[in-house]
């Protein structure tokens, strides 16, 4: 890590600094509210390092979900990372040991920066990308620890703070809605989940029905492939 790359990367990461401090603080605050202090916040942000994934983690910890459910929910929320990785194959090539960290730290925000940022003349691009990734995670860890400490010090009624996770998903959904030309996948996902999770889940158990919902969604999307592909093909790669 050289200072030249760090000082070139810092200005690029300032928007993420603002965002991660705020969202990280809310995460730490929620985590403290369910009884896990800043040490837990620190280690979760160090080892998991995923915004929406850790929000979900708060819910999973507070409901004492089984490990199978934890694995499935984490897989679902991170599925979109598959697409990020595909478009970073070229960029991370030849980064040696740092590639491992680049893959680990590929969050939505870091992805967005890496997809657009250009290394200034005279700065090694690989070091520049690595510095961006490293700075972003340090903001995230800092924010979550501050949030957890603040949560322990400030005695506020945190009832309802878990809505932050719902709000985060709604924001992602609105962005996706605008980016996609075809809205059938989103509508399908919502409708199938309402039928299977909310209605049949009362009878067969919600955790089981969550997996069934996912299966039915994938199946329906495969059946509808021809119809969806021709429409979506114009807008994406």
């Amino acid at each position, binding site marked *: 890590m050289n200072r030249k790359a760090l000082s070139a990367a810092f200005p690029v990461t300032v928007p993420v600094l603002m965002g991660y401090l705020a969202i990280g603080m809310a995460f730490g605050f929620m985590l403290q509210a369910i009884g896990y202090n800043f040490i837990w916040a620190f280690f979760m942000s160090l080892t998991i390092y995923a915004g929406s994934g850790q929000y979900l983690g708060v819910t999973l910890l507070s409901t004492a979900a089984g490990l199978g459910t934890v694995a499935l929910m*984490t897989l679902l929320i991170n599925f979109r990372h598959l697409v990020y*990785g*595909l478009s970073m194959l070229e960029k991370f*090539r030849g980064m040696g040991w740092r590639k491992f960290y680049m893959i680990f730290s590929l969050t939505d925000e870091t992805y967005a920066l890496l997809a657009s940022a250009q290394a200034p003349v005279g700065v090694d691009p690989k070091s520049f990308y690595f510095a961006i990734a490293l700075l972003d995670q340090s903001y995230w860890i800092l924010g979550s620890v501050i949030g957890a400490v603040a949560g322990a010090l400030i005695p506020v009624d945190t009832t309802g703070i878990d809505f932050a996770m*719902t709000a985060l998903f709604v*924001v992602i959904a*609105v962005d996706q809605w605008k980016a996609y030309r075809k809205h059938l996948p989103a509508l399908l996902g919502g409708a199938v989940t309402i039928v299977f999770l909310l209605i049949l889940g009362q009878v067969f158990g919600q955790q089981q029905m969550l997996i069934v919902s996912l299966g039915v*969604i*994938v199946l329906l999307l495969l059946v509808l492939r021809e119809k969806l592909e021709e429409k979506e093909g114009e807008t994406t790669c």
Partner: protein
Amino acid sequence: MLTTAGAIASIAVMAVVTFLTRALPFLLFDRGTAPPKLILYLGRVLPPAIIAMLIIYCLKDLSFAQAGDWLPQLISVGAVVALHLWRHNNLLSIFGGTILYMILVQAVFV
């Protein structure tokens, strides 16, 4: 509440699964072979379907027995959508909606 060991196990599972989802494209397609069309198709259409699924999952405990059990959620989701369409600011939308929800469940629909 989970035991300390149970919580550590949950966090470890989250960390490993998160890393694997990020690493999968590199493990499968870094040899220069183009990803199969089917994978690319699912990679494009699944994320919006899954996010819709997760929103419903978040709202699964909603009940229509009394106004306080569903109106705060409905109003706050509406507020998040409206805020986000208006200002396009992630933080404003998330925190605005959450603070509104907290006020609704703590002070309005008690």
